[in-house]
């Protein structure tokens, strides 16, 4: 199967959003109650980044400005010229969203956490507890993988080895979906 016809191609997988029962309202109420400082905690491929992305528009709808910090996309973020400008730009209306906080390392994280106390909030994603109080735990299940795959390929999901894939990738749904991409690419080659 050619790439543009693969149902597990990146643009289709990214269109599948986080399953948040009841929508973002209750979670953001909890965020407010926590003083607007909290972590989305979960293992790799459990949807933390997706959830963080989905909460951004909900925060804006509540009147906050949102500043997303994407360390991979901003390699110069901590440069002497860039970082002070970021800190100066923070105000009580701005909520900072930081993906993969553990990438900072402990010392830089401590400095970042202190520097953002002047902001209106700080929400992070992390693989482990301990950086900020847990706002939500992101967990996956075989049933969730099945639900997501069903969204992408319909009833065909029932015929795919999803339980095995879930186990092989230790619950990492991102990796399981990538494996399904390969499965589809190979299958179509065999069938012509």
């Amino acid at each position, binding site marked *: *199967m*050619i*790439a*543009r016809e*693969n149902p*597990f*191609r*990146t*643009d289709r997988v990214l269109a599948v959003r986080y399953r948040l029962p009841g929508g973002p309202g209750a979670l953001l109420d909890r965020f407010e109650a926590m003083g607007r400082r909290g972590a989305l905690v979960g293992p790799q491929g459990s949807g933390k980044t997706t959830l963080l992305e989905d909460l951004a528009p909900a925060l804006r709808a509540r009147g906050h400005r949102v500043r997303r910090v994407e360390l991979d996309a901003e390699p110069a973020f901590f440069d002497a010229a860039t970082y002070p400008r970021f800190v100066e730009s923070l105000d009580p209306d701005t909520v900072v969203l930081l993906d993969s906080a553990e990438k900072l390392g402990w010392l830089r994280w401590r400095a970042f956490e202190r520097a953002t106390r002047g902001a209106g909030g700080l929400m992070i994603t992390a693989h482990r507890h301990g950086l900020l109080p847990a706002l939500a735990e992101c967990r996956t299940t075989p049933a969730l993988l099945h639900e997501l795959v069903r969204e992408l390929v319909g009833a065909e999901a029932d015929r795919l080895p999803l339980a095995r894939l879930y186990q092989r990738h230790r619950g990492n749904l991102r990796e399981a979906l*990538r494996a399904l*991409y*390969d499965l589809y*690419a190979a299958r179509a*080659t065999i069938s*012509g």
Partner: protein
Amino acid sequence: MTISLEIVRDQWRPGETLEGTVSWELPGAPKSVEVRLGWETRGKGTRDTKIVETVRFDAPARSDRKPFRIAVPGAPYSFSGKLVSLVWSLEATAEPGGESEPIRLTISPTGGELLLHGK
């Protein structure tokens, strides 16, 4: 907001000319309307995208219809492999206001999509 080509076909060769019309009817007058020809990659990895040609109409009326002409670029060609496809699209956007449904195009010397692997 709609975009239409005078010659209705989806396979084009470099050097040919896309001639068409963009028409819109919006709640308010937009700052600008643009017709854009560009490509994107689709597949397993990170997506890439590039706008190659733009025809811009500044300070247009709330409702109007404008012709456009865009020369079909020489590269890159439309192609597909197992890992990545390159797909061309023609679309129109109004700022603010909306966007048209994109028209998918295939651009290559053969007129067809280049396949990077056998069946």
